[in-house]
């Protein structure tokens, strides 16, 4: 075999199984041995070539967008066209059956003049859904800041949760903070059924300092069956400020 043929095979597939003729050639040809060793050294060094760093804020933006994806999925209504028709067909069937029964009963009842029982009025229950967004104004970057949201007894989670859960009724979320305003939408939706306002406690731990804040969950106005609102938790982090939060 010629050197050009052997080297062509080596360049094509340096890790491949070499035919006996190539191995025989390699055994006695120093330039081809050198190519083989160079390729091996090069391949090892190529694996060490580090990828470029991501732009600053990339991971934070990604987490924010993933959270939005989850919130959107949690809040998305069921597909309408099909379910509407199914509901319409079911209602029509129920009406037909009821109508038939009433007709049959009217014809067969021994006392046709007896009054029909009226349906009882159903009390309208109001349900409020609260999305939770955080706005943190940070004077400097904070790695892995922790957010704790303590849920009131009457509120339940309707959507997904954060990356990890604390004990009891505390939802915990971890995120890096960049200098400036950090807007974070938590992928959770709180479901509130009580008619009275309740308090929601939130805590932010950033670079060893603890910031707390309290927010009021206001139920939907009476007469509304469902309502949706966004709770905005805001902090201003200042390295010189005392360990206390400020609600904006």
């Amino acid at each position, binding site marked *: 075999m010629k050197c050009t043929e052997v080297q062509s095979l080596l360049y094509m597939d340096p890790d491949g199984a070499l035919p006996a003729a190539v191995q025989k050639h390699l055994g006695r040809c120093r330039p081809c041995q050198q190519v083989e060793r160079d390729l091996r050294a090069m391949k090892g*060094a190529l694996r060490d070539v580090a990828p470029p760093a991501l732009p600053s804020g990339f991971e934070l933006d990604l987490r924010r967008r993933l959270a939005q994806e989850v919130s959107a999925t949690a809040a998305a209504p069921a597909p309408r066209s099909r379910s509407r028709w199914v509901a319409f067909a079911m209602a029509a069937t129920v009406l037909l059956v009821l109508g038939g029964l009433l007709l049959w009963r009217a014809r067969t009842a021994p006392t046709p003049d007896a009054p029909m029982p009226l349906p009882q009025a159903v009390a309208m229950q109001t349900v409020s859904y609260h999305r939770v967004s955080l706005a943190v104004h940070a004077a400097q970057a904070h790695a892995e800041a922790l957010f704790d949201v303590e849920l009131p007894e009457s509120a339940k989670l309707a*959507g997904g949760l954060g990356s990890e859960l604390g004990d009891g009724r505390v939802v915990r979320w971890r995120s890096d903070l960049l200098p400036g305003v950090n807007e974070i939408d938590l992928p959770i939706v709180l479901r509130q059924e009580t008619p009275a306002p309740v308090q929601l406690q939130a805590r932010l731990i950033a670079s060893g300092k603890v910031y707390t804040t309290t927010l009021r969950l206001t139920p939907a106005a009476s007469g509304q069956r469902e309502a949706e609102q966004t709770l905005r938790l805001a902090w201003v982090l200042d390295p010189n400020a005392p360990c206390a939060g400020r609600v904006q």
Partner: protein
Amino acid sequence: MTDASFETTGGDLVARFVQTTRPFHERLFRIALTLCRDRDQAADLTQEALIRAFRAFDRFREGEAVLPWLARILRNLHLDTFKTGRARHEVAAHQLAADRGDPLDFQPSRVPDPLAALERSQLSTWLTEELEALDPDHRLVVILCDIEEFSYQEAADVAGIPIGTVRSRLSRCREHLRQRLLHRMEGNLTGGKVVQMARRKGEPR
């Protein structure tokens, strides 16, 4: 204790997705940079690809290779979004083709196993620079096959070229890179004369 009534689906999914894909974000970004060359555009493409991957995460099979899966999504997204703006660096490709088989280009070294004798970190630094000088289409196959260790078929899927083209491009790139490294090695030994000569010839730095 965790409240059993909590619906954990959404948050768990985000956590699982991030845990699965986080080690590959920079590496996906490197592929994106090769596809669209502009840093901001590459970051947008990477992020959009990760969002698409998240939407399809329920179809991701456990044990499947993560980066080839992400890279396929990235590639499809790039085709959808940027295909009209695709510019080819034909001049650089011609330069690469001209390197092939030119006997004057390669001078046997005086040092046995010259590349093996170099510090691996030095070799990696030079390779990083030489990869930047390659035209993007060729750089992509080297990144996919020799750095990320994709199979030829996976690389062909991501690069959108036949598997034979992957093999031939790789072969030319390996030969070109080796010769460039030997030039650099010679330049190091002789005070940079060979590298300076290469610059005068207009080779990419």
